[in-house]
């Protein structure tokens, strides 16, 4: 237990084994169409 720092989310970006399948949504198709947003998408493997 840390006193000064709280780890809110342990990022998993470096976990790349078996990733990159490309089954997730294309970045521009959801509700933007004039920007690019990838950080709000879900990994299809985890749905």
């Amino acid at each position: 237990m840390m006193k000064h720092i709280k780890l809110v989310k342990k990022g998993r970006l470096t976990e790349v084994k078996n990733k990159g399948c490309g089954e997730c949504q294309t970045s521009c198709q959801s509700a933007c169409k004039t920007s690019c947003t990838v950080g709000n998408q879900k990994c299809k493997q985890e749905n």
Partner: protein
Amino acid sequence: MIHQYRLNGINIVLDVDTSSVLTVDDLSYEILELYEKNSHQVIINTLSSKYKKDEISEALSEIESLIKEGLLFSKHDYNPDQYGNTDLIKAICLHVAHDCNLKCNYCFAAQGDFEGEKCLMPLEVGKKAIDFLVGQSRHRKNLEIDFFGGEPLMNLDVVKELVLYGNQVAQENGKNFKYTMTTNGVLLDEEARQYLNDTMDNVVLSLDGRKEINDHMRKTINDQGSFDVIINNIKKMADLRGDKDHYIRGTFTHFNLDFSKDVRFLAQQGFKSISVEPVVAEPIHDYAIREEDLEALKSEYDQLALDYLNQENEGLDYNFFHFNVELDQGPCAYKRLSGCGAGRDYVAVTPQGDIYPCHQFVGNESFKMGHVKTGISNHQIKEHFDAGNLLKKDDCQNCWAKYFCGGGCHANAYNFNGTIMEPHKISCELEKRRVENAIMIEIIKDDQI
């Protein structure tokens, strides 16, 4: 690399390469500001007039332990080529109508016709486009078709036929099509609403917000405001949609830098899924967002975030697209590195069957990639977009937000800087503030669980 910032009274630290999020006390925040360029002793000496030495040492020790765990100042080399699939396309934007029943001032489609002939996509062209998509998708199962325009409801009969055809083709080929329509709502009568609700996986409804704001930019063919024409149709569509995916999609411009009021207005109308984002336009236009608007817009996103967090107290219940961030189950590094799918795994098809990297390149002949009947013929364009990943963009290398935007929109980059490899600066600045707020919102939500 880390990014540290203070927002809504919280000291937030993002470890960029792992995407870990931490909150820290004031002491640790100040230590982290000094950490990379100073020894422990210098840090202790610098801060000892403000904090007790043993407290500083304790915080330093926590930081050291997180570094050892790889959660602070982490460094990870990703291989961008692992995500490259040069011949694979998984999504198409079908321009079923190069015509529109509105004439919005800021329309990048030149009021629907993309500076070409006004026309509707014939059924045969649409079918060829679907065949092209299936052929190019190889082993990918989940494919996307967005019915776009102009105004796609002007060609609804063809859309209906294409959905039937798509379903048949999907079944025959073991594919799963996800259909989306983006509409301005003018022709959204009861029958159209029911049809879209039954068949579309997502419906994007264009409405800018307050009546006077919407009507200033979104005009009818007779130069009248469109708000009164569309509002009831869009409300009924959203009501029918319920929890199924849909978005009220607005655009803000230089004329409504106070766009949080438009988001609030839309939420007050009962809309639950809202996406309002900046217009992308060259500075010659009076409505364009310019650099001097940036500070006001950043403050506006901060205000919107506070409103968003307070929505329950105001009796509101809505989701704002750009404050969604997936910190637990977000996309993998390869997806984030490849970013914008234009010309790579996503293309746009015109009513004539011509293929372009995305809807925003349509009409620019030098970006024509091929035709649905003959496939991709200009492989140089495809290769150019394939190679346009995050790690090859100089401006992105030292940007903390790179794994959230994936390097930005290639069309914006090209339109402003003449190359897809140099992101559009104003868009970057606004994206960064949206992400900062989105993370802050997640932290507060996490605390409430």
